[in-house]
C-alpha cells in the first residue's frame, strides 16, 4: 500500500523529498529503512518537506519514504484510559517491553492492546437505523468508566447484523451496518480519527456549571466552568506543574487527560507512581482508572511534542462524545509553541515575534476552541475543559505565547514568583488573575450554595484590593502610622491570604476542600471582620484584639476543622462573639 519515494535532504527532524507529486499535505509517512513516523508539512514544485517524529541520526539520502495515504490518526477504542502514550499515541509500556528502558527508534507497537478481551454488550438490534454518533455497544473499560462504542461521525445506516453480547477484542466486528448507498460497514470496537481535525458535535452549550477543583483560590475567586479554558502562566519554580497535578487529582471531571508536553521525565514518573496510589474521592477507585497520560518529555523528539497536544485533545473529544466531562491539562503549551518555532525555523519560514511563526495565534486559538460544553452527535452532554500551563521566558508575561494564550482563554491564573519564594502555594496572584466565568456561573452558585457565597466572595475580593492599596502606603511609611480601621483591613487580609488563599497540597484535609467548607471559612473570616470593625469604631485598639489570638486561630482553622466536621464553624462564630464582646465590656 501507499506511495513510495526517496529521501533527498536531511536537516535535524526535517527531511525533504525532491521532485515528487506523490504525497499530500499532512499525510503520515514512514521514513527510511528504520520506518520512522513522519508527517508531510510542506509541498512545493521542487521539494516535499516532512517532519519526522523520531531521531533522524543515521538516515541516508535515497532511503525510502512511504506514504500511508491519510493524515496522522489516532486509534480510539477501549484501553486508552489507565494508559500512558507518547506524543503520537504509542503506548510507552509496550515500548518498554519491546526495547527496554531507553526508547529505540522505529518502535512498531499498536496503540491499543489487541489481545485484551472486553465484556461487550451490544445495544444495536437488527433492522435498527443508526445515526452518526449513536451508541451501538458498550463495555466497562475501568472500574469507573463505561466505554461506549459510537458510530463514526461520517457514517449512518441500517443494522444488518448485530453480534451477541460477549468477550471481544478491539478489532473484532460486533455490528454490521448498510448505509444509504447500500454499502456495508463493519463496526469494530475501535475507530481512527485524524488528530488535527476536531470531532463534530451537534451544538455548543453555554458554560454554566463550574468545574470544582477543591482549590480555594480557584473555586472561589477565579472559578472555571466545565467546558472552559484556563491559562496558568508562571516562571520556573512558581508551581505550574504542582497546580496542574492538584487539578488532575481533585477536579470533579469524569476523565482526566494529562499531557506532559516537553516537560521532565521524573515528573511523569511521579504522576505515574502517585496516581496509582491515590484514590479518587468520588468513586473510591484508583485515580488511574480515570486518567490518560500522554508523555512527551523534553528530550523526546520535538515534532512529536508538537503532535502530543492534538493527540491529547482528540482522545478527550472521543470521551466527551460518550457524554463524559473531560478535563485536559497541557503542561506546558509553551513547549508546544517552541516546537512549532523549531520546525518553522527548519522550514526557513519568515519569523514573527521572538522567532515564533506568524501562525502561532491561529494555532493556539484552533486548539483552545476545541474545548467547550456540547451536545454530542449522540445527543449526550459532555464537556472538555482545557487548562494549559504557559512557561513564559524570563517569567515575563508580555511575551507572545502568554499574550496570545490570554486572548483565547477565559481564565487567567497567573502564578507569581514572589509568592512562590515565600512558599505561598498555590502562588496564584489575586491582583492580576481573572476569570470571565463569574456571570455565567453565578446562577449555579446561588442555586447550590445560596446568595451568601457570591456576597462573601465579593467582600473577600474587596478586602484584598483594599489591602493592596494600603500596602503601597505601608511600604513608604510603615504600618504603625496607619489608623486602626486600616490596620484591621491589613490584618484581616493577612488572615485571608494565609488562612484561606494559601492551601497545603500535602495536608490530608487541606489538599481538597469542598465548596461548602470554603463558604464557611469565608463566613467566619468576614464575621470576625465585621465584629472587630465595630470594636475599632468604639476606639478599642486593634492591638487588644490581636492579643486574643483569634486571628492566628482563624489562620489555622483550615487544618483544625476536618472536612467532615463543618458544624465546628458555628463554634468559631460563637467564640468570636464571646471573645470580642467581653473585650467590648472591658473596654
Amino acid at each position, binding site marked *: 500500500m501507499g506511495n513510495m519515494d526517496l529521501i533527498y535532504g536531511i536537516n535535524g527532524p526535517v527531511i525533504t523529498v*525532491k521532485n515528487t507529486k506523490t504525497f499530500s499535505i499532512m499525510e503520515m509517512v514512514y521514513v527510511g529503512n528504520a520506518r520512522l513516523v513522519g508527517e508531510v508539512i510542506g509541498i512545493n514544485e521542487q521539494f516535499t518537506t516532512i517532519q519526522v517524529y523520531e531521531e533522524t541520526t543515521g538516515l541516508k539520502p535515497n532511503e525510502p519514504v512511504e506514504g500511508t495515504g491519510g493524515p496522522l490518526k489516532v486509534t480510539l477504542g477501549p484501553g486508552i484510559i489507565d494508559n500512558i502514550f507518547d506524543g503520537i499515541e504509542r503506548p510507552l509500556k509496550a515500548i518498554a517491553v519491546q526495547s527496554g528502558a531507553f526508547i529505540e527508534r522505529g518502535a512498531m507497537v499498536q496503540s491499543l492492546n489487541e489481545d485484551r478481551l472486553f465484556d461487550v454488550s451490544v445495544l444495536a438490534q437488527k433492522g435498527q437505523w443508526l445515526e452518526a454518533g449513536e451508541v451501538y455497544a458498550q463495555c466497562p473499560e475501568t472500574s469507573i468508566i463505561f466505554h461506549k462504542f459510537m458510530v463514526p461521525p461520517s457514517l449512518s445506516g441500517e443494522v444488518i447484523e448485530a453480534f451477541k453480547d460477549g468477550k471481544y477484542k478491539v478489532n473484532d466486528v460486533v455490528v454490521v451496518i448498510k448505509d444509504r448507498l447500500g454499502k456495508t460497514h463493519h463496526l469494530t470496537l475501535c475507530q481512527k480519527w485524524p488528530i488535527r481535525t476536531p470531532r463534530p458535535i451537534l451544538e455548543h452549550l453555554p458554560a454554566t456549571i463550574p468545574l470544582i477543583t477543591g482549590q480555594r483560590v480557584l473555586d472561589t475567586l477565579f472559578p472555571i466552568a466545565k467546558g472552559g479554558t484556563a491559562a496558568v502562566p508562571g516562571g520556573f519554580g512558581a508551581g505550574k506543574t504542582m497546580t496542574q497535578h492538584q487539578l488532575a487529582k481533585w477536579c470533579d471531571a469524569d476523565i482526566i487527560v494529562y499531557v506532559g508536553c516537553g516537560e521532565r*521525565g521524573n515528573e511523569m514518573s511521579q504522576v505515574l507512581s502517585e496516581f496509582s496510589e491515590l484514590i479518587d474521592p468520588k468513586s473510591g477507585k484508583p485515580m488511574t482508572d480515570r486518567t490518560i497520560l500522554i508523555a512527551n518529555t523534553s528530550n523526546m523528539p520535538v515534532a512529536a511534542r508538537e503532535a502530543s497536544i492534538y493527540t491529547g485533545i482528540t482522545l478527550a473529544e472521543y470521551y466527551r462524545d460518550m457524554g463524559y466531562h473531560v478535563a485536559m491539562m497541557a503542561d506546558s503549551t509553551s513547549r508546544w509553541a517552541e516546537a512549532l518555532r523549531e520546525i518553522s525555523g527548519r522550514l526557513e519560514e519568515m519569523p514573527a515575534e521572538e522567532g515564533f511563526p506568524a501562525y502561532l495565534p491561529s494555532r493556539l486559538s484552533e486548539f483552545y476552541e476545541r474545548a467547550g460544553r456540547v451536545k454530542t452527535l449522540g445527543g449526550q452532554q459532555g464537556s472538555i475543559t482545557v487548562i494549559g500551563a504557559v512557561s513564559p521566558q524570563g517569567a515575563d508575561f508580555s511575551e507572545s505565547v502568554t499574550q496570545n494564550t490570554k486572548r483565547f482563554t477565559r481564565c487567567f491564573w497567573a502564578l507569581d514568583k514572589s509568592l512562590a519564594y*515565600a512558599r505561598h502555594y498555590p502562588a496564584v496572584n489575586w491582583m492580576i488573575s481573572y476569570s470571565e466565568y463569574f456571570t455565567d456561573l453565578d446562577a449555579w452558585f446561588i442555586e447550590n450554595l445560596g446568595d451568601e457565597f457570591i456576597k462573601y466572595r465579593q467582600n473577600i475580593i474587596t478586602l484584598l484590593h483594599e489591602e493592596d492599596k494600603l500596602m503601597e502606603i505601608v511600604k513608604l511609611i510603615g504600618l504603625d502610622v496607619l489608623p486602626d480601621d486600616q490596620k484591621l483591613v491589613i490584618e484581616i487580609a493577612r488572615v485571608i491570604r494565609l488562612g484561606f488563599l494559601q492551601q497545603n497540597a500535602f495536608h490530608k484535609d487541606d489538599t481538597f476542600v469542598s465548596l461548602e467548607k470554603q463558604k464557611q471559612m469565608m463566613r467566619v473570616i468576614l464575621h470576625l471582620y465585621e465584629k472587630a470593625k465595630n470594636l475599632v469604631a468604639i476606639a478599642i485598639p486593634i492591638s487588644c484584639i490581636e492579643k486574643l489570638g483569634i486571628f492566628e486561630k482563624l489562620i489555622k482553622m483550615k487544618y483544625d476543622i476536618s472536612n467532615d466536621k463543618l458544624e465546628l464553624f458555628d463554634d468559631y462564630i460563637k467564640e468570636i462573639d464571646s471573645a470580642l464582646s467581653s473585650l467590648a465590656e472591658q473596654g
Partner: protein
Amino acid sequence: MIIDYIGAKSVNGPLIMLDNIEGASYEEVVYIRFEDGTARQGRVVSINGKSVVIQVFEGTRSISLTNTQTRFTGHPLELSLSKEILGRTFNGTGKPIDLLGEVYPKIKRNINGASINPVSRVYPQNYINTGISSIDVLATLIRGQKLPIFSGSGMKHNELAVQIVKQAKISEENKENFAIVFAAMGVKKDVADYFRRSFEESGTLGRVVMFLNLSNDPIIERTITPRCALTAAEYLAFDLNMHILVIMTDMTSYAEALREFSSSKGEIPGRKGFPGYLYSDLASLYERAGMIKGKSGSVTQIPILTMPNDDITHPVPDLTGYITEGQIILDRSLEGKGCCPPVSILPSLSRLMKDGIGEGYTRKDHTALANQLFASYAKVIDIISLASVIGEDELSSTDKKYLEFGKLFDSQFIGQGFDENRSIEQSLDLGWRLLSILPRNALDRVDDEFLEQYYQKSDNKLKL
C-alpha cells in the same frame, strides 16, 4: 569499499561543504586527513542530495578547497567504554589526553544516547546529604536529580561543587559504587586544575572521569563534550550499577558554542541569537539524569552555569530552570558579606525535595521547618526594604526581631563556610534555634506539635 573524497566545495566557519557524496548518513562521523598525515574529526550536520555539510570539531583553520581527504565512517559519533575509564582524562570528543593510551573498549555507545522511557524511570526519592545546611534543609539534593548551580563570573560556584563532592554522603556509604564524571566546557585551565586538585585531596581521583574542553580548545568540540560525559555516566550507572555524580561546567559556554555553530549554519536565531532549539538541546543533556527500574545505579547532575551579568532571565539560566528539577542560586551580596557558600535561599528550590524528606528520610519536622524558614526569611526581605525607607529605629519590636533573625540566619545558617560538614540533625536544630528568635505566634507554618518540641525557650537562643 572505502572512498576518500578529495577537497571541499566551500569552507564557512567550523563547517565545510562537500559535493558529489554518495550514501552519507545523517550525524555520521568523518575523518578529514591532511597532506602531512594529521587528521581531524567531523560530523555530518546536513544533507541535501549529494552535497553534505560537515562540522569539523577541531576547527577549519588551514583547510583549503584542495588539501583534504575526507573519509566517511558510516556510524555516528561513539564513545569507547569500559570500566577502565575511571580515573582517566579525555578531551572534549572523548579521546584520552592523559598519555595512558587508548581505552580498550568493552562496548561503544552513540554519544547522543536515547531518551529514557518515562515508564521505566524510578521516581527519585533518596536524599543525598551534602553537609551544607542551606542545601540539605531548604533545597535538598536527591539521588537521580538534576540540580544546577546558577552563579555569576567570579563567584564561588566551583568551591560549592567541590564541597558537595567532598561531603556528599554517597561517597562514604559505599565508596566502591560511587564515581564522578566531570565535564569542563570552556573553563579556564586554573578551574580544571582546581577541580583535579580537589578530587586528589579528597582521595576520589581514581573514581573520576574527566572530559576537558578548556577555553582555548576548539569551540565545536564543546558541543560534544557534555554528550561524551553523559554517555560515560550512563554506562557507569546503568551498565555497572554505580552512583554517578556528573558535574558540568560551564553550561553558558556550551550554549554559546551552540550559538556559534548555529549561526555559521545560517539558522534563524531565537532570543539573544541562540538557536530556536536551545531548549530541546539543553533538555537532551539534562534529561539524561535519573534512575531506571531494575538498575541500582543513578545519574545525578550538578550543572554549573554563570549567568551573564547575573541576569537570571538570560536564555541559558531561564531555559535551564525550566528543564531541571530546581536550582541553587548564588548571591553576590551574600558572598560580599562573607557568607559562604553564598546560597540565595528564596529563589533556590529543589522540586524533588518534597517526597525525599520528612519521616523515614530526614526528620518529621523537616517540611514544616523548611516552609517556616522560607516564609520568615521572605518577611525579613520585606522588612529590610521597609527599614531602608523609614529607618531601623522606626520598626516595630517584632520587625526588629525579624531583622535579628535575618542577620543570624545569613551568618550562621548560610555562612557555614566551605569546610564545615553538618549532619542533617545539626542543620535542622540550628534552623529551630534561629526560628526561636521570633515570637512563637509568628510561626504560622508549623503545627503546635513541632513548636512544643523544638521551639526554644530564651536560655538557648542565639545572639548576634
